[in-house]
């Protein structure tokens, strides 16, 4: 786990290098915008969580970063800068120079994301060979074993010759992570990496990702529907709603004082141990609008307890206030958004213990 060692005493922002920058990204089909004008950055060595309910566009955004959009879904506008290069209009050949090199991806269902009829060792070796074709058989094998050890798979020599169905869910996900690590990527995109696993295994896999980040300093984009996972694991959070960004900021700031009503509802819906027994858990009534049927205004307005007439007419501008460690908390809301908002702790850029420690 990473403890944030730098304690700022001044208001100066820490000079964190940006690895990925998404600018005004629009992704969609012929009839609907699944991702509608999304912008965010992934700083080097940090974990950024993309949070939202199903259909919020978080997975589509993550896949767009890899150029792995499903058939019929395309990037319609905006830019995706990976180390300064705009990859959003790349052709398949150009994409192969990015995938598995600068960016790697881990998927939701570890059984389905491995080829059922190929030995685990061969599937990792394939990635190793693509990254370093001159390695030779012995070198490849050594590198595969090294990767299996890196993801803490016991008895790696034996696992080499096993098939995915012979491994447990957690082991399979470790193998998928080993494949993703084969190229020493700068960014690892983890799309709901623990949703298909049981709770204890979930924690182990997330711990593993943290450890790997501490070891080789890669950035992680963690896609999750669970804001608690984001709170435990991420440095920064991007809350998405109906294809748009609802709120972004340092995870501690957003969780402690959410500004956008959707974020507030999302945090209020997290069950806690001090609810009255037999009482109903808090929920957000209604469902998000279908991407092809969004109104001209704020997409959350129909479900929002604070909504006013103007909310249906136009999308609110970004409101921003300083957060901790020189970050900024940003959201879009007419009602809660006013200029010159004070920071969550009252003072801009105040230092604080890392939430993620």
């Amino acid at each position, binding site marked *: 786990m990473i403890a944030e060692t730098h304690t700022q005493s001044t208001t100066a922002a820490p000079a964190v290098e940006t690895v990925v920058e998404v600018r005004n990204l629009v992704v969609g089909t012929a009839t609907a915008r699944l991702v509608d004008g999304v912008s965010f950055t992934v700083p080097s060595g940090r974990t950024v969580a993309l949070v939202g309910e199903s259909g919020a566009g978080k997975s589509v955004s993550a896949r767009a970063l*890899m150029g*792995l959009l499903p*058939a019929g879904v395309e990037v319609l506008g905006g830019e995706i800068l990976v180390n300064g290069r705009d990859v959003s209009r790349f052709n*398949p050949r150009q994409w*192969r*120079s990015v*995938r*598995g*090199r600068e960016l*790697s*991806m881990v*998927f939701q*269902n570890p059984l*389905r*994301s*491995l*080829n*059922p*009829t*190929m*030995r685990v060792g061969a599937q990792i070796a*394939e*990635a190793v060979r*693509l*990254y370093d074709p001159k390695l030779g058989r012995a070198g490849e094998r050594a590198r595969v074993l090294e990767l299996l050890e890196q993801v803490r798979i016991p008895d790696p020599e034996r696992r080499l010759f096993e*098939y995915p*169905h*012979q491994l447990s869910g957690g082991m399979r996900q470790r193998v*998928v992570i080993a*494949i*993703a690590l*084969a*190229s020493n990527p700068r960014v690892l995109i983890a799309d709901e990496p623990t949703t298909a696993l049981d709770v204890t295994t979930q924690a182990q896999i997330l711990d593993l990702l943290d450890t790997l980040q501490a070891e080789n300093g890669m950035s992680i984009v963690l896609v999750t529907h669970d804001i608690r996972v984001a709170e435990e694991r991420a440095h920064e959070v991007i809350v998405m709603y109906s294809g748009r960004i609802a709120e972004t900021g340092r995870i501690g700031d957003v969780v402690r004082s959410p500004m956008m009503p959707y974020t507030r509802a999302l945090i209020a819906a997290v069950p806690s141990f001090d609810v009255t027994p037999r009482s109903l858990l808090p929920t957000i009534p209604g469902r998000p609008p279908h991407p092809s049927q969004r109104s001209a205004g704020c997409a959350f307005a129909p479900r929002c307890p604070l909504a006013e007439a103007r909310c249906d007419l136009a999308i609110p501008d970004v409101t921003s206030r300083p957060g901790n460690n020189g970050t900024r908390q940003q959201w879009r809301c007419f009602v809660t958004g006013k200029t010159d908002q004070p920071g969550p702790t009252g003072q801009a850029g105040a230092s604080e213990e890392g939430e993620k420690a």
Partner: protein
Amino acid sequence: MRRMILARLASGVLVLFGVTLLVYFLVNALPGSVAAVMLGDQATEEAVSELSAQLGLDRPVIVRYFEWMGGALTGDLGKSFTSGQPVSEAILQRIPATAQLTFMALVVAIFGSVLLSVVSLSKPRGVIDRTISTSMFVLLATPNFLLGLLLVLAVAVSWSLLPSSGWTSFADDPIDNLRRAILPTLALAAGPLAMYTRLLRGDMMEQMLRSDYVVTARAKGVSERTIRLRHVLRNSLFPLLTNIGLTVGILVGGSVVIENVFGIPGLGRYLVQSIGSRDAPVVLGVVVIIATTVVIVNLLIDILYGVLDPRVRHERSNS
């Protein structure tokens, strides 16, 4: 694995029993009798019934069936009514031509379908893909005897490239044998080729679009071509294998027609001749051979599944 093989063999015996019983009654239900066919249309009724009695045909069908079955179980398939030749000997003479044709057709259909599917999917829904798809549909809808006749007309008659009919055994003259085998092989392979290509292309396309492991391979940076050949084709061969087992019967059935179109002295032509002359022992003998082949091929495919598919292999070794 051994238990599976034994169970399949037992069910195979039941299949053979059922098939022979059915065919025996069908042959006997045909109008006319072998005696009438042998003696010609000038024969008196007395002569016909005398010959029938000589051949033992005056006794009940069920008695004769079990007599035949008793012989068959000891390896004696009886003698042809019309020629007096032992049935097993007559069949052995005719197996090579049929076996060669069906085997060559199967090889053409399998390799052809793999090639066509891979080429099709190099650009899904492109011109080549659509052309291949349409051609396969046309082939699937064309009866194989019609295709055979068209091939004869075009290649043998108009261009005189290959002989139109007749047969030379491979042992006598391999080159002439192959020249004569080309057209019937193509006519026989067309149907299965179309079926396998549609199946294989469809299954590969489905995997390319929906399988998560394909996305993983893309995320590694594997090229589309390598994904098609190394990941997708390999996994799609399993449904193809099942389909081959199911279509072996169709292939053998097709050879019955094709051998008659091309005048090839194989089992199929022999079967048609014997049905015409109501020669029950021969009909039954050929049916037993064909049914046994289908049962054994399907058993072999099941065993092959266990050898090739790691999922089945481990499930079986664990149970």
